[in-house]
């Protein structure tokens, strides 16, 4: 059963299982997960760049850990993520907190882990990036998205990563975000250079 479970874009079904329960293991340092399989960090960075650049409507979802400059270094990381989004040409919608929002959210301007699908549907997002979201809430949202939408999910995690995302990087820091941006810029140049 292990190895076989693929973490693919949905909609997977009414209540999809947690990938971890299906045998998908988190990557070790220097590794990453792509669709449930372990790959090197570098390979995953390229995969993320490709996914983002080929997306019709990619969006970044920065969470509270990035939106608020609550400790040293956060503002810089936030800027790097914004630069990455800009390099991709992606939109940015924040997840300011995790409360079950009453009476409703405005899906045009925010995303909430309890009903992330609303924001994805409303904005017709085909590839999204979670970053700066506490792991528990990211996982909840990632499963709901995989269950009910066809959105391709990417998680840039400062901790151990997320099996429930289609691509998951771990130990993401400022340098890694900048590395990803550089790869994106590189690929864009290649596309522009080789393009018609």
């Amino acid at each position: 059963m292990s190895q076989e479970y693929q973490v693919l874009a949905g909609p997977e079904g009414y209540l999809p299982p947690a990938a971890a329960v299906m045998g998908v293991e988190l990557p070790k340092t220097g590794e990453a997960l792509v669709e449930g399989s372990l790959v090197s960090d570098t390979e995953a960075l390229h995969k993320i760049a490709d996914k983002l650049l080929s997306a019709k409507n990619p969006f970044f979802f920065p969470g509270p850990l990035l939106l608020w400059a609550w400790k040293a270094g956060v503002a810089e990381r936030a800027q790097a993520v914004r630069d990455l989004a800009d390099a991709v040409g992606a939109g940015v919608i924040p997840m300011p907190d995790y409360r079950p929002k009453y009476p409703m959210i405005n899906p045009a301007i925010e995303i909430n882990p309890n009903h992330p699908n609303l924001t994805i549907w409303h904005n017709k997002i085909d590839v999204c990036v979670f970053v700066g979201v506490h792991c528990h809430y990211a996982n909840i949202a990632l499963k709901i998205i995989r269950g009910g939408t066809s959105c391709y999910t990417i998680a840039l995690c400062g901790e151990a990563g997320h099996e429930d995302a289609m691509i998951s990087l771990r130990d993401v820091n400022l340098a890694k975000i900048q590395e990803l941006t550089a790869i994106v810029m590189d690929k864009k140049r290649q596309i522009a250079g080789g393009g018609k």
Partner: protein
Amino acid sequence: MTKNILKMSPAFADIIPAEYRELVDNGPYGRDVGVAELGTFKELLEEHPLCAGCGLALALRIFLASLPAPEDTIVVGSTGCSSLVFPQAAVQNIHSLFGNQNSVASGLKRALKLRFPDKDKDVIVVAGDGATADIGLDMVMHSWFRRENITTIMLDNEAYANTGGQESGMSQQGTVLYMAPKGKNFPKISMPELAREAGCVYVAVGTPAQPRKLEKMIKRAILLARHIGPTYVQIMTPCPTNYKFKNNETVNRLKGLEKDGVFKPREYITAEAQEALNKLEEVSK
């Protein structure tokens, strides 16, 4: 001063939704605003699901406006109507279980004392009458016996409102409610007196019909809890839904109950607390 948790990362400042921006720009954090200034600053509370005319909601609004340091306040709640409000309040809040709020607060307060020995982190329990006087009474009282540095606030609507209006220990004798089909057959529990006997250094009974007075009680309770000892504030918060009165009558009902002597605002202060209070209120003048 504005704490870092309230500072927007410049890179994302343009996409922060308005309600958060207003909290940062015009909220009560780190500012000397209170009940008198209501209507002129962004309140900590957003739209909540409580009934129209809810006395408890009104009390919570006043409570949140009365916090001496919302930027360092953690509220511990309990199951009940109030726990439906706190997800929409911009202070950190723990809803653990029904009745265990004062135990959770004891652990939390001691943990925060360990982690932030030089800061006053206000741990405030806000729970209903069922949670405080019935299911959680032993834990409420033991937190007082242990002299925990926490404030306990009871929102007393004299019934289990969230579950549909059952009798509670705080209901008035004779009241017909669910589970008291023939009328409640024992008197309202004397929580303020119990609190005084159990070691609270400051006890107050207040009403949102007198918001400035209530604010003063809440502020005193929170400030005294920091270093002197446990404090207790009981707030009468009528429930139009379960007591079946018109939802525009909540405040008049409060005034009527007071006039009829059914409800008596009062304060108990220990000598030690009074001395501390004199100093505190001297400084603020």
